[in-house]
């Protein structure tokens, strides 16, 4: 009881201290806490700025919107381009002018008005049974009848898959995307759902032979950070970088924006600039097995075999714009049913 009470009082005081202190900054993130902790710790160490975080998996935009001008949020961080652009569209961000950010991040990975910045990239790749003979693979292939009953994938409503479908719409149009989704649905070995790692485990378990999942999970499983079982799962698969016909591999980003009413704007910009420094980009690559956004920073040796990424050139805001259509298509074809 006493621990809790002091915790409550502490929280009240902290809330008030946050408003007063200048050497702090408040981060609202949809990114799972453990993934960004090493980055934040390193930032605090090198700058002396303390970072208070709240992980808001869903409802980040709603909360900031409702908090209004009194919001303590300084930096808003998401793991999906759609959510990032959504923040901008709702007017919850402010433009930032920073030479460091502009120099580090390629133009297609940041907003031209400076409202959002990508911080890391992940590719949507193919996990396949290691005994399968596959030299190349396209996303279009997923819908081919030869894969009937052999495909595992998470929910068609998950932001990662919504972004993939949205990319498909940008490439081939909405009608073709619908046909494609119907084809993929017909090929499913089990109900769409679970997580990306389940694809590897289900391939090992003989439930399916191929599936789509994010690139960095390969690194996480191989690294042993998830425990010895996951090292076994990943041994059962090989990774192929699929492409769109006439395009490249679909990528999504994690990114951040400075909140419109940020009380600590300077620190917020400082954090963003830190996150694209060589040092932080290296942490992204080595701790999270993501692709750095900054050209020249190497990926982790653990995923060296999938390092040759030919990222699809489609404009990210274009993909974000098709997100709603993509989600509705998934519902229209009953992808998850």
């Amino acid at each position: 009881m006493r621990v809790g009470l002091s915790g409550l009082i502490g929280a009240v005081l902290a809330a008030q201290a946050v408003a007063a202190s200048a050497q702090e900054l408040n981060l609202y993130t949809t990114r799972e806490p453990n993934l960004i902790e090493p980055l934040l710790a390193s930032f605090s160490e090198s700058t002396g700025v303390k970072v208070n975080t709240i992980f808001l998996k869903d409802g980040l935009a709603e909360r900031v919107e409702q908090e209004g001008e009194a919001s303590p949020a300084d930096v808003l961080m998401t793991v999906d381009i759609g959510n990032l652009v959504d923040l901008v569209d709702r007017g919850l961000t402010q433009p930032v002018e920073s030479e460091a950010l502009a120099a580090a991040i390629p133009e297609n990975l940041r907003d031209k008005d400076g409202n959002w910045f990508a911080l890391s990239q992940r590719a949507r790749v193919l996990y396949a049974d290691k005994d399968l003979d596959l030299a190349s693979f396209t996303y279009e292939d997923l819908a081919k009848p030869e894969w009937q009953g052999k495909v595992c994938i998470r929910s068609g409503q998950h932001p990662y898959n919504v972004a993939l479908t949205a990319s498909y719409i940008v490439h081939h149009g909405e009608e073709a995307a619908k046909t494609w989704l119907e084809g993929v649905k017909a090929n499913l070995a089990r109900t769409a759902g679970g997580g990306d790692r389940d694809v590897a485990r289900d391939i090992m378990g003989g439930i399916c032979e191929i599936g789509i999942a994010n690139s960095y999970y390969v690194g996480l499983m191989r690294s042993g950070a998830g425990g010895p079982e996951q090292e076994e799962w990943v041994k059962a698969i090989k990774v192929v970088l699929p492409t769109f016909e006439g395009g490249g591999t679909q990528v999504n980003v994690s990114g951040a924006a400075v909140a419109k009413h940020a009380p600590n704007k300077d620190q917020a910009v400082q954090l963003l600039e830190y996150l694209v420094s060589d040092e932080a980009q290296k942490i992204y690559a080595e701790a999270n097995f993501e692709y750095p956004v900054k050209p020249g920073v190497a990926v982790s040796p653990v995923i060296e075999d999938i390092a040759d990424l030919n990222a699809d050139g489609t404009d990210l805001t274009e993909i974000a714009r098709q997100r709603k259509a993509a989600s509705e298509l998934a519902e229209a074809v009953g992808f998850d049913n």
Partner: protein
Amino acid sequence: MLVLLPVLALGLFALRGSPGLWAHLVSNVLPVAARQTVILLLGVGFIVATLGTVTAWLVAACDFPGRRIFGWALLLPLAVPTYIVAYAYLDLLHPVGPVQGAIRGWLGYASPREFRLPDIRSMPGCILLLGLVLYPYVYLPVRALFAMQAGNLLDAGRTLGAGPVATFLRVAIPLARPAVAIGTALALMEAMNDIGAAEFLGVRTLTVSVYSTWINRSDLPGAAQIALAMLAITMALVMLERRGRKRQRYAAGAQPLRRMRLRGWRAWGATLVCALPVAFGFAAPAWYLVGAAWARYRFAGLSPRILEEAGNTAFFAALATLVALLLGLVVTGAARMRPGRLTQTMARLSTLGYAVPGTILAIGLLPVIALADRQIAAASQALLGVGPGLLLLGSGAALIYAYVARFLAIATGGIEAGLSRVPRSLDHVARTLGRSPGQVFREVHVPISRPALAASGLLIFVDCVKELPATLLLRPLNFETLSTHLYGEAARGTYEDAAIAALIIVAIGILPVMVLARTIRR
């Protein structure tokens, strides 16, 4: 008011939706979601009603090996949140997991490609899991009914020559029907509000649809519209519960039940019937969690933060429980002392929060709380010249509000059930002796309904510990509870990291179950 505000906010959100949206929902989302919800509710309802009634009858009316242990052990599944059960079973029953591995070894198969069981990620799997975890909602009221009230009627049945089975079918079941209805309605509300397990097992209920409409399309109006449509189903459940309660007439001073001693295969059959739900609803997932947590502990050690998270969880749950009970007393007391349309309606409305899925309630609460916060901040700035920031959201008071709004129904329902056992004649006597309504309430009602208070309090406490969506959305900065920790790890796909937090949630859940068991034994 407390509970009504977020629902009003939802209504406002719903109005902002575009008409085209509703057409899409009606043609693509609602038919499937409604069908899946109905199938799920029918399936879960059947399992919880059967399992809950049969086990309650056996424990209350019969004697067989292990009866005393099952008396409380049958409550244990209450301690395990449905999402944890789902995670645990997926791991246990996966083709590469221990169970299927053992079966293959036994049958002489080398790889899962040669032999595997059907996938747990399916509607039948979801029904079975939810049923196994939620049946105590039926077991608890039905057992209380058998134990306290049914003695003379059952005795009469037996005097007239009915055997155990016949007494059960002809006397016990009709007698228990109202209590079964109450328990089943509660269990079904839990099932319908469940998002973790259903989503995880690939079942797309209305709640899951609300969620994905909101999250994946940033379409709050659409989500609010489905949510309001869902309220209709839930109100039907609430009415079912009310009807059940209305018919429940307690005869004070009834004889306690004399138990029938079962012998031979019947006795062991009874043991088996009681053992199965305990084994599958509690023991298997708990045993799995202990193993997973131990493996994790050896692999990565114990995070010091976990203690802090456990403290946060327990403190906020306890505080919310206290507030909910006090409010529940006030609401039910008012309805009893001054029966009128206003107080009746208030009592009924206070149960709304339980009917709205947690996610949606949280979304409805956010604007309400944020508005209050902005007003406080502006007033303080004007009066004192200091901005306190967002007081409610920043301090965690918002969380208490959310918990109370969500679980007040358990308090009012439980206390009402307790009070209904107090004959009105007792009120009249007390009034005749010159007591004021308030005094009658304090001196007669509260003491008599103490067991009901304890039972409801414990249910609320456990529910607060398990609560996820509102906690995620409304908590202050740098604040984690066990469930948000668990969710963070699960969202990342690293369930194994969450095993320790999950085990603590279950352990916290067990303590109230123990107390609950003691309360009902008396």
